[in-house]
């Protein structure tokens, strides 16, 4: 059995497979199916200072190899998380990453200050494409990314900060460097690609929000390219995601430079996806005589 443990910003993960925000809630539902202490970590459902009701339904559609969602950050608010969900997750012994979002810069500062020292890491959602008020705007332009990162970082004295990048931008390396300049300890990418699925008979988009975030197997090649670009543009560690369905997919992201991966849409296709992916990674490493997953990170050789 290969060593799957990784360390990012001083935080130890028992394996590099993290549940991606928005697909795994706060872990309780998946824990009814398997003991979630098996996974490396969880990035929680995106949280805001106050509860949010989210978008109207339908919130999901499907296209070839992908899904599209526009949940609109429905969440019970950060206080509810601290009181109800955090104690449950602490008992599970997995790395707890609080995914946070806001409509204004001040929102980000406030929620980071509240969570400082309570969770293992904070992940800034500056790229959620579904909230008209803020999300997208903050995550597109490098100067905005640097500003929101710096403000968030100044409110986090104890907890490392991950900035989750949007792929709907001009330059991933430019934006990755902006987050690094702002003081990010780590970068994660990619969030979803903005897209549309149309019901031809009704001549209407399927989801109520008209557009939504595209995720799933079909985005993997683009995500891999972006993760490669980001990890070679900055010194800070990168967590990769985008269409990971198998252990091989996860290892491809790690060879491209990711220190860990997040798994999202795969959880819908297969509720046992994460423990399976962890097993498949171990099998592949073992069958290739590699005793430690860290040996594979950033080993991609370009042609």
């Amino acid at each position, binding site marked *: 059995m290969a060593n799957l443990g990784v360390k990012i910003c001083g935080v130890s993960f028992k394996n590099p497979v993290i549940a991606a925000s928005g697909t795994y809630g706060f872990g309780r539902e998946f824990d009814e199916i398997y003991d979630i202490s098996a996974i490396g970590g969880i990035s929680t459902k995106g949280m805001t200072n106050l509860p949010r009701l*989210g978008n109207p339904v339908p919130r999901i559609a499907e296209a070839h190899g992908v899904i599209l969602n526009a949940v609109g950050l429905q969440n019970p608010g950060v206080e509810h998380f601290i009181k109800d969900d955090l104690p449950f997750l602490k008992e599970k012994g997995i790395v707890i990453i609080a995914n946070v979002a806001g409509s204004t810069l001040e929102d980000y500062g406030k929620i980071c200050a509240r969570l400082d020292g309570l969770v293992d890491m904070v992940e800034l959602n500056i790229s959620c494409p579904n909230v008209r008020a803020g999300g997208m705007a903050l995550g597109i332009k490098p100067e905005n990314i640097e500003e929101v990162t710096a403000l968030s970082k100044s409110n986090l004295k104890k907890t490392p900060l991950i900035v989750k990048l949007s792929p709907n931008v001009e330059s991933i390396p430019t934006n990755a460097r902006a987050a690094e300049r702002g003081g990010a300890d780590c970068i994660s990418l990619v969030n979803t690609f903005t897209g549309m699925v149309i019901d031809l008979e009704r001549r209407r988009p399927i989801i109520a929000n008209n557009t939504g975030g595209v995720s799933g197997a079909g985005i993997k090649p683009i995500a891999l390219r972006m993760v490669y670009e980001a990890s070679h543009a900055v010194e800070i560690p990168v967590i990769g995601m985008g269409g990971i369905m198998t252990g091989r997919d996860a290892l491809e992201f790690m060879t491209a430079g990711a220190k860990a991966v997040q798994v999202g849409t795969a959880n819908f296709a297969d*509720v046992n996806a994460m423990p399976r992916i962890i097993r498949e990674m171990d099998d592949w490493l073992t069958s290739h005589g590699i005793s430690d997953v860290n040996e594979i990170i950033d080993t991609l050789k370009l042609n």
Partner: protein
Amino acid sequence: MKEVISTVKEVKLIADNVYSLTVTLPEPVGEVRGGQFLNISTGDSSRLLKRPFGIVKAEGCDVTVCFQVKGGGTLALADARVGDKLSVLLPLGNGFILSENAKNIVVIGGGVGIFPLVPVICGNKDKKFYTYIGFRNKGCACLLDEFEKSEKFTVVTDDGSIGEKDNAVNAYLKDRENVRADMIIACGPPVMLRALKTQLKDKGITTPCLVSLEERMGCGIGACLVCVCGKTDGSRARVCKDGPVFDINEVEL
């Protein structure tokens, strides 16, 4: 709740564009309450989402669902061959919980919403069911034999091709003096459930009423917050996990 690989046992056309699919699990299905559903892969790996269907029958290792072909996913399932392997997650949701002292149950169903009502009638032998089912027309009618197991069964159609030309809600209201209902359960298109809610309110009928809702789903287990419905208290509920069955007065229809 478990995810298993099932084997397709039978696929058959039971009405216009409506199919019955029976799969065999590697182990007994276990206890399933009427109104609970399962999530099944389509067999087409380019489709990442499973499809949620109300469980119609669960017997030994076999479980049956019925569905209308609406898009590519349901078309793939209609084309499934005997022996095909499909991943199934079940049982999901709360189902219809009938109170012990409710002896006479009114069942109102419309179109493809009738399916989750079947196991309620078949699984509660100690109760009497008074059933009102509506279809668009004769071609859409199916599973009538199952509903015949009710104490009283009325079928109506929009065009009068079977039974009277009427809808299921009206059929019940016209007959309600003859039925002392302790409880009403219903499943059907949103327009039917809305009409039921309005009529119960307008006529001052206070009989407890449970409705099963449908929504496009992601995970099916309550984690992703995709399939929500509005509650009358202003909050949101997850159709897959908090439902799909709700008290008619607690949800916005």
